[in-house]
């Protein structure tokens, strides 16, 4: 593990991605200190261009776009991290059980196939319309469609590891099934799972923005990058900064997370890295 930590940060992609994400995390945490009230109306300063007093300009109601983008960081990061956490933990448990117990596998994997057949954004919209839109519901609705891919990944690793001689050796020394799954099989699924988690995180941030843009995501009183872009769409031609800045932040965040994911993949499996 020590060796991995060292090599992880010697990867320039992980380092670059981590620095960017760290800046966003700090921004989200320190939002009240570095930005004004994102909901403060100022009818005299409507649709102002970016300037010294309004870094990113203002929207049609005179709200400071910079403050709104800063607060929007919170939503994106919370959604990204929680979805990654929820989807990978549920996926990990289901995947290990499926890989090990054939009867459960037959049933669960068919359900997963069914879920994968529905586009994730449609499934999320359906789930949100069933319940009242709130941040928690948005997170759950985005996490559920992400689960099948995690389950498939974990299951495939388990199926491969299960056939290895050291698992037979563990059975031959009297290890029980539960212990076998947790102690002997689970650790092998972690490296690919970490990589998958970063991709889930990035795609969750994008999905949240997409949902908010469609008006099915975060409620309007919480500024998020998605509903900022959605709100700015009508005034795009006269004040393009309204969608430019939130869009830029969205792109940078997703790029940074993907950089970390790629770097992790390379340092966790050096054989692939050398071939590419």
């Amino acid at each position, binding site marked *: 593990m020590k060796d991995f930590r060292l090599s992880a940060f010697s990867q320039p992609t992980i380092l670059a991605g981590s620095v960017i994400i760290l800046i966003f995390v700090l921004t989200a945490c320190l939002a009240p200190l570095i930005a004004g009230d994102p909901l403060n109306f100022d009818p005299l300063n409507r649709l102002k261009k970016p300037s010294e007093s309004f870094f990113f300009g203002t929207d049609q109601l005179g709200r400071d776009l910079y403050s709104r983008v800063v607060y929007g960081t919170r939503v994106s990061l919370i959604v990204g991290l929680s979805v990654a956490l929820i989807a990978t933990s549920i996926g990990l448990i289901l995947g290990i059980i499926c890989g090990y117990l054939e009867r459960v596998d037959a049933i669960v994997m068919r359900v997963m196939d069914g879920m994968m057949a529905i586009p994730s954004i449609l499934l999320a919209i359906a789930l949100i319309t069933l319940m009242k839109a709130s941040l928690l519901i948005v997170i759950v609705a985005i996490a559920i469609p992400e689960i099948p891919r995690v389950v498939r990944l974990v299951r495939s690793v388990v199926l491969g590891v299960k056939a*290895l*001689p*050291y*698992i*037979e*050796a*563990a*059975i*031959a*020394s*009297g*290890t*029980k099934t539960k*212990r076998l799954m947790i*102690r*002997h099989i689970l*650790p*092998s699924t972690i490296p690919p799972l970490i990589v998958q988690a970063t991709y889930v995180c990035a795609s969750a941030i994008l999905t949240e923005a997409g949902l908010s843009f469609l008006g099915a995501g975060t409620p309007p009183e919480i500024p998020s990058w998605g509903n900022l872009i959605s709100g700015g769409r009508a005034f795009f031609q006269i004040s393009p900064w309204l969608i430019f800045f939130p869009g830029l932040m969205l792109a940078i965040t997703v790029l940074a997370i993907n950089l970390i994911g790629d770097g992790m993949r390379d340092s966790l499996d050096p054989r692939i890295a050398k071939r590419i």
Partner: protein
Amino acid sequence: MSLQLPAPVLRIDGLSTEFFTPGGNVCAVNKLSMRLQQKETLCLVGESGCGKSVTALSLMRLIPEKQGAITSGSIHFEDKDLAVESESTMRRIRGNKISMIFQEPMTSLNPVITVGDQISESLRIHKKLSSRQATKIATDMLALVRIADPARRALEYPHQLSGGMRQRVMIAIALACEPSVLIADEPTTALDVTIQAQILELILELKESVKTSVLLITHDLGVVAEVGQRIAVMYAGRKVEEGPVNDVFDQPFHPYTQGLLESIPRRGSSSKVGPSRGQLPEIPGFVPSIREASVGCAFATRCKKASPQCGVSAPELVAQSDDRAVACWHPNFD
């Protein structure tokens, strides 16, 4: 006063193990009977595919459920019949009373767990030791299998150890709970020759100190001569000859055993006659596929002494003296 043999540690009676294939059931082990005495080393020899490893897996009841099963016979161990015991009883026996050393030290250790933890695992499962006690015994076991600096090595992962050291770790795992039977399935095949000798010596030495009986599975007759007390020769799923190693090596009764012994390359050894002059001696032909159920003796097609009788009925294993038995219509008693 007659000399009474002590009760064997492990007694196998008429064990048959079959595998289910699309072409019908295949009998990999056919009515095998064997006794393993206390503190003895019994060598099970035979060429690839003769059922040696399947015998070992049957004893541990590790035959994959969907692919095969023990179809008849019994395995007596400590008043239990392992052939019919429940899975949970078997789990208590595996690694505790009967343990196994696998062929491949490179792949039989879990790459993501330190070797110390892998040794202490069976102690914690079977002896219910605390993690500190188990770690201490694990370190002692590493010292016992002569790994230098055991405390440091215990914290290392398998990839940091050489092949010979990994096999020592496997031995430490197998012997940690002081089992009464140790099954070693070709423990030295994957190692180079000098390490082979060290590992065999180590197994023998630990056998004495842990007071365990060893069932050594091998195809290397050199190994048998060095470490075995008794030898059982298997051919196509059946035991064809059994006896004390020295006696069998001096005078093999079965033509197959004879052929095996003659096939050991010695310096200057070669066929003395015929067109094959200059070649190493061998047993002609191939092992018959166990898919084809043979009526007669399975070795008949390759046997120099084969007679019409051999092709019609299979010979039963017949005791020739107190400790020797052979399954052949024309045993070699010269």
